[in-house]
């Protein structure tokens, strides 16, 4: 059983300590409730707690409209992930290659797409490329920038994973006569991929957050659906809150999965 620094920052409290903690707990609960009450009052005094504005989200047609957006989000994210992750792996391998040129090219790609905002790439596709006669459908104007940027970040994740595989594995593979390429494919990569699985799920979360840029390209993902809904109903704060909550829930669940996977892997590593 291991303890961390956070668990010994304070002793098991004695009577005076317990009283102080109780007092501060009550105080903080009061402050938190006061803040919540102030927020609700602010909503109420501007007429935003009117049930009519909130109950619409239980209507089937509103839900179907939002679901259409969510489906767009999931489609875009899934496609981007399926293309970007293997591409990231290739980039990582290129970065680690002994061919200087290949390694340098991969490094340039990775550092470039990690250093600029995805929005800029989206604008390039939206506004710059049409000037050269290349116009993509809205769907691809969102997905391709997502793939480009995500490939760079997942390349770094894979590189970290490959580097995290114990040196001994490389040496053992060489000792039984595997070429560098065979060693990589048969010995190192399977272990590296298993190591980076939680980080890949987090990369999926990042892709999901990036998909909100459909708002800018007018592709029917969830954020843009919210914008359309607002232009119809004029319920700004309600719509945007509902949309945000949906994103929070999905990302929360995905992050939980990643953390659980990570914990299980660490437990297995500690036990072996």
């Amino acid at each position: 059983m291991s303890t961390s620094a956070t668990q010994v920052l304070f002793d098991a409290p004695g009577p005076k300590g317990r009283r102080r903690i109780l007092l501060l707990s009550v105080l903080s609960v009061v402050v938190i409730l006061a803040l919540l009450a102030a927020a609700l009052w602010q909503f109420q005094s501007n007429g935003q707690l009117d049930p009519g504005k909130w109950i619409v989200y239980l209507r089937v047609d509103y839900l179907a409209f939002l679901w259409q957006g969510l489906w767009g989000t999931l489609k875009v994210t899934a496609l981007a992930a399926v293309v970007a992750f293997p591409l990231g792996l290739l980039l990582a391998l290129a970065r680690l290659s002994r061919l200087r040129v290949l390694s340098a090219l991969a490094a340039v790609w990775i550092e470039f797409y990690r250093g600029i905002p995805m929005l800029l790439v989206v604008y390039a596709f939206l506004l710059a490329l049409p000037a050269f006669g290349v116009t993509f459908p809205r769907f691809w104007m969102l997905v391709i920038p997502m793939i480009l940027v995500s490939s760079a970040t997942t390349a770094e994740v894979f590189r970290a994973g490959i580097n995290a595989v114990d040196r001994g594995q490389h040496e053992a593979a060489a000792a039984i006569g595997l070429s560098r390429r065979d060693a990589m494919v048969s010995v190192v990569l399977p272990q590296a991929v298993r190591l980076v699985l939680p980080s890949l799920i987090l990369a999926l979360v990042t892709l999901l957050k990036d998909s909100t840029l459909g708002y800018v390209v007018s592709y029917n993902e969830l954020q843009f659906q919210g914008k359309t809904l607002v232009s119809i109903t004029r319920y700004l704060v309600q719509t945007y809150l509902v949309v945000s909550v949906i994103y929070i829930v999905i990302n929360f669940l995905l992050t939980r999965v990643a953390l659980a996977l990570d914990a299980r892997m660490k437990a297995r590593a500690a036990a072996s």
Partner: protein
Amino acid sequence: MDAIRENIPLLLQGIGTTVALTVLGYVFALVVGTVMAVARVSPIPPLRWAATVYVEIFRNIPLLSLLILIAFGLPDVGLRLPYFWCGVLGLTLSSAAFVCENVRSGINTVPVGHAEAARSIGLGFFGTLRFVVLPQAFRSMVQPLVNVFIGTVIGSALCSAIAVQEVTWVTQTLNIRYAQAVLMFLIAGAAYLVLSLGGAALGGVIERAVSPGSGRDRSRAGSALDVTAGAQA
């Protein structure tokens, strides 16, 4: 090139706004995030719970959704901020959640014995944190905090979607006027690359200053496997 020559003040203003958004957002995020981290490790359950809720909300909400909510949703409830401060608020709230988790991870890297030793010489909760734990935690926090900074730089671009006149907005406006998309893209890209690569370099300098001879793979790639802090868009 006319596009640049005739609009140098506007471009500089845009770059200045980007830098201001990033720096203000990051500095406030450091403060709020550290406070949240202290709340998360404190012995007071309601504070721990409130900080956890905060982190879960602002770690998982997409930055664009948050910015749109602040800039276009809050006026409905009477809170109308200038768009620049909406951007700063959004960047602060979002980055603070990641700073909090990174500080907490950093606190966890300090060996337990140090905290126990601090307790044994009578340092209280805040004393332990301030004199023993946080200074040592800082050494392992530098790289993740640099990544949060770069995330803030990238995030500041999204503020152009809520009409903040930072460099992305300026270059796209100029693009519409002059139809010189590639040039504008290069300018904006250069600005962001300078900020993010410069931030990474500065972080490297700071890290070498606080942990000489650390030899571990503490590059940006090394911390890419750390899952606990979550993914910053």
